[in-house]
């Protein structure tokens, strides 16, 4: 059965590969076939897993099975010996041995077909001869457990924190190639503690590697990706809103291909866009939640719904989401926060948080008398933006750098901080430097209030700033003072590394209060809110 399926499947596969490489969307039949093949492989693999349990170390098993894209599992070498499973081999994207160049191949169809055939034959032959596992996933050494038990508990590990695992990188390269998105290369020497994270250079944006015209990625998304990677759109709320607007544009321009269901096809259409945006800049927690919401809404569209109606509904949903979760939430938070601001207060803020700025402007309009101290840090210097906005409204401000915080804190009566995400163990993930300010404020007994909308609450848990973080362009640290640039050629010096972190986590004992649109809660009540939200959904 397998063999005949293979010969059939291999022909179809060629068709599929060809259409992929030409930028056409796969037809429904082709997709169904791929899905079937994948299910077959999974079944066979499970059988083999039960047999050779102690040898194999497959931690990506749950990942591969949960990913709904028609992507067969990674390394052909880790396939079990017997010939009963050659199906994966031809199904594997032929260029899987080495990541193929992104540009569309210039050879003729017949040549490609012949090439692939030859490779498939060779692979099948080698598979016949192989006997045990080669176990390529020895690197991380995670114990293999029956996948069905692990699936609900172990969430999929995001790729962007596994850069030091070559298997993950290969898998990512294949996935991107299938989606026709270029792979962004890391830049510069990475500090050893952070070798599991990506480090990109702003001077090499992903869009330089895109071919023109690219029919796979919507131009609004390309623009958005570029804005992210160059830092033009920065800040959790701004990025989420921009993302949602771009998706609205995508939905407006979308037409359901014949014989396809809108609910499934649109979700699949969005996947390469999300990969692309992820390559430009790793997604934030708020963006992740927004995407989850959209996907859910799309898949809930009943199949008998007409296209125009469905699109209208989706656009409406997105509008509602932005309105409720971001704009109205900001108003609610401002209402609560203004109760906490009294006349004569000296308020310290860090960096540029749109929510905190909103709160301060509202409080000023309600005629509260206070002054603000804006603390800023290199290299982003976002505090200057906050300073401009506040000074424009007429609020009296002071400006210092973060190293002067111990000097200025004795004058301060309250600290307002924004958050990028609130983690399920009560830690606050925010711009790097926030935890430092909370630490010094605690030492001086100044109350620390964090303002955060509920859509930024995240089920992840994290205790330090190393495991999951983002590394920004290390060249940003270079500065020229008095005509001398000390770190100009840091790349030439072999033992010198520059570290430009973006986020850090603040432990909950430094935070006195979290102000959300649901009310004022302590930091440790975040998992309660998450649970309530999930029940509602």
């Amino acid at each position: 059965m397998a063999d005949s399926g293979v010969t059939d499947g291999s022909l179809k596969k060629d068709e599929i590969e060809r259409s992929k490489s030409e930028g056409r969307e796969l037809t429904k039949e082709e997709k169904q076939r791929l899905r079937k093949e994948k299910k077959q492989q999974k079944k066979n693999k499970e059988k083999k897993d039960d047999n050779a349990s102690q040898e194999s170390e497959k931690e990506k098993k749950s990942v591969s099975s949960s990913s709904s894209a028609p992507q067969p599992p990674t390394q052909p070498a880790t396939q079990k010996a017997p010939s009963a499973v050659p199906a994966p081999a031809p199904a594997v994207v032929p260029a899987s041995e080495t990541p193929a160049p992104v540009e569309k191949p210039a050879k003729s169809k017949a040549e490609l077909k012949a090439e692939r055939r030859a490779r498939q034959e060779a692979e099948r032959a080698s598979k016949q001869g192989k006997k045990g596992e080669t176990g390529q996933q020895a690197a991380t050494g995670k114990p293999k457990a029956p996948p069905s038990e692990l699936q609900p508990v172990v969430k999929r590990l995001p790729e962007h924190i596994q850069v030091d695992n070559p298997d993950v990188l290969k898998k990512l390269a294949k996935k991107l190639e299938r989606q026709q998105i270029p792979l962004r290369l890391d830049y510069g020497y990475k500090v050893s503690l952070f070798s599991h994270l990506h480090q990109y250079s702003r001077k090499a944006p992903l869009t330089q590697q895109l071919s023109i015209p690219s029919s796979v990625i919507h131009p609004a998304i390309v623009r958005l990706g570029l804005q992210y990677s160059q830092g033009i759109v920065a800040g959790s709320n701004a990025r989420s809103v921009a993302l949602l607007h771009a998706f609205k544009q995508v939905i407006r321009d979308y037409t359901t291909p014949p014989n396809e269901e809108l609910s499934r096809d649109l979700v699949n259409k969005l996947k390469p866009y999300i990969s692309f945006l992820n390559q430009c800049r790793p997604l934030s927690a708020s963006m992740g939640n927004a995407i989850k919401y959209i996907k859910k809404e799309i898949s809930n569209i009943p199949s008998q719904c007409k296209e125009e109606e469905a699109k209208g509904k989706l656009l409406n949903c997105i509008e509602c989401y932005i309105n409720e979760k971001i704009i109205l939430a900001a108003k609610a938070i401002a209402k609560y926060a203004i109760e906490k601001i009294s006349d004569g207060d000296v308020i310290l803020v860090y960096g540029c948080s749109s929510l905190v700025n909103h709160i301060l402007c509202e409080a000023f309009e309600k005629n509260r008398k206070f002054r603000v101290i804006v603390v800023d840090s290199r290299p982003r210097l976002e505090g200057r933006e906050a300073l401009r906005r506040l000074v424009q409204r007429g609020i009296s401000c002071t400006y210092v750098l973060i190293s002067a915080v111990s000097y200025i804190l004795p004058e301060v009566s309250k600290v307002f901080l924004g958050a990028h995400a609130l983690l399920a163990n009560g830690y606050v993930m925010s711009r790097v430097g926030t935890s430092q300010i909370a630490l010094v404020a605690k030492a001086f007994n100044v109350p620390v209030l964090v303002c955060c909308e509920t859509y930024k609450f995240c089920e992840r848990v994290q205790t330090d700033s190393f495991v999951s973080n983002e590394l920004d362009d290390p060249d940003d640290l270079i500065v020229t003072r008095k005509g001398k640039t000390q770190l100009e050629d840091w790349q030439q010096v072999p033992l010198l590394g520059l570290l430009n972190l973006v986020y850090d986590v603040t432990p909950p004992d430094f935070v006195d209060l979290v102000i959300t649109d649901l009310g004022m809660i302590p930091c440790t009540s975040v998992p309660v809110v998450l649970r309530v939200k999930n029940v509602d959904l």
Partner: protein
Amino acid sequence: MPGSDKETDLTERIEAFLSDLKRGGSGTGPLRGSAETARETTALLRRITAQARWSSAGDLMEIIRKEGRRMTAAQPSETTVGNMIRRVLKIIREEYARSRGSSEETDQQESLHKLLTSGGLSEENFRQHFAALKANVIEAINELLTELEGTTDNIAMQALEHIHSNEVIMTIGRSRTVEAFLKDAARKRKFHVIVAECAPFCQGHEMATSLSKAGIETTVITDAAIFAVMSRVNKVIIGTQTVLANGGLRAVNGTHTLALAAKHHSTPLIVCAPMFKLSPQFPNEEDTFHKFVSPHEVLPFTEGEILSKVNVHCPVFDYVPPELITLFISNIGGHAPSYIYRLMSELYHPEDHEL
């Protein structure tokens, strides 16, 4: 006349030194390290002793005090000047006491017993003239100069007692003492150094390039990342501008945050400070503690429109309380912060604390 020539020459030198001090502190002139300042002060004091006209120890002390007041007024934040002056004054007192024949201890310590039995403080007016006093004082000052020259090496020699291999050490800004300390340890051990750049002056960059060229694996981080990275650090080694009388520090800004982060993670904080940085001042909340430089460093003039409506502060120093410090390493060995007051009483005479 040779006499007046000498005098004018002396006054010229003093004036030159004063203007140097004034310029150096504003950040415009070349930055001089504290060791250099200490050496130059001591050399100048030796010259005053040699060339000025004085007949008794009291006169000499008066002259030195007068010049000393002018020098400290020129640059109040440069405390090594005042420290060296107090050291020399103590030297003069000691030499005078030795010449008089009485032992040093009984004169200097005011114990309750002495107060009761002597029936009033003995008036020590230093008016007696001793011929050999000049030579003795100059010799003692020369000894002091030799000691000053060897301080950095003495501290660096202790490096291997404190650094083991595969450590991660954090430091902030640029301190020549710490640089020598780490380079000395690097000759025998392999470890990793994280340097916080210390905005806005970013002296950490220079420190990092210098350390990496000496073969030490270095990473530069921003000030904002100090707490984030602290959990992986084994030791924090810093330098300081001044060690205060209570064991606290007046160090470059950002050090207090670093000390708090180290305390939170229970990481030991080691301060490498030579003895000439020890100052008999206590930290006050007055304006004399903090020094500010041009806010242009923080918010440049290119930010035009908002500049007039905003207050910008750029302090240079931070106060670090002694509870956050684990160890002081100086040229005479290692001490706990609670021992500093004792060292100070050996270096300076209590009457000289106010110049």
